[in-house]
């Protein structure tokens, strides 16, 4: 069984949360795990809802071999806070968001991971802090991903 948990960490805030698979797209979760560790600049979505947005995530080891059209999807406005979806992911680059609050975008995406319940409060607090920064003081944040055991 491949490892079933990764850590999402914000070094500038010295905060981290645990993320685990959900009821579907387990192969997408495993693909992501195979490519860890990795990191990117942390941004937020600015139209659809409060989400942490990871647009330039290098997947160095294993190439993406799936397309979203062939995966089970969930509607962003409906799935719970703390859940992650994949957006324009191809080749060795992943692009995804973690829902952090109220979202109105009614579009379907392949969801694949979720922050564990015990860490959701930390996650939402981090998301709000980064959102405030994007709108006001423009501090730069990064997010790192590594397997739970490392």
């Amino acid at each position, binding site marked *: 069984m491949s490892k079933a948990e990764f850590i999402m960490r914000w070094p500038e805030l010295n905060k981290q949360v645990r993320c685990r698979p959900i009821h579907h797209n387990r192969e997408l979760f495993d693909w992501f795990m195979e490519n860890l560790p990795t990191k990117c600049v942390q941004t937020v979505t*600015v*139209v*659809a809802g*409060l989400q942490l947005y990871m647009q330039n995530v290098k997947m160095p080891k294993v190439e993406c071999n799936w397309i979203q059209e062939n995966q089970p999807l969930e509607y962003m406005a409906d799935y719970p806070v703390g859940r992650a979806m994949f957006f324009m992911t191809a080749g060795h680059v992943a692009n995804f968001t973690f829902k952090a609050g109220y*979202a*109105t*975008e009614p579009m379907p995406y392949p969801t694949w991971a979720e922050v564990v319940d015990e860490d959701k409060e930390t996650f939402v607090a981090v998301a709000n802090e980064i959102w405030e920064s994007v709108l006001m003081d423009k501090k730069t944040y990064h997010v790192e991903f590594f397997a739970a055991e490392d």
Partner: protein
Amino acid sequence: MKTFQQLKAEIEEQVAASTVKPDQDVLDVFKYSISKGGAGYPQDNQIFTTWFYGAPDCGYVTDWCYFLVELARDESYSMEELCKMARFWFVQPSHFGEYCGLYKQYYFTKEIDKILDTLTREEFVQLLSAFRAYIANVNVWVFQYMPWGVGYAFMRKDGKYFEEALSLCN
């Protein structure tokens, strides 16, 4: 499910209606700042980010259609491949355009999607060309209403500008 002729006629009717009169969706979103699908509400109830990201996703459907029609000239692309590319390329951005309040264009996208697999190559070219003409009209009105004058508060700068600024800093 509409026939090719019915849908093309309906699109052409909308082209005519929005050539010199405002497209209703663009009027709602870009002139009245109404958030019809909820876009922008979670982010401080503002409409600017919807304009910034929503308008181009819809507007670039003109280019997606242009590429598809050009590739349709190349017989080595089967109709099946052209339909797959069409779905890969403009359904999702058009759907995001709907979420941003540009309903009519996504209604057409869904109707095109329904009959896409039944179209001949010539019908594929004709239908996407008509649809592109409607999206072009949407673009016209988006650029008409975008508050470009705000740009006068963000003017292009150069070395001379910053040298002068520096001299005022100390």
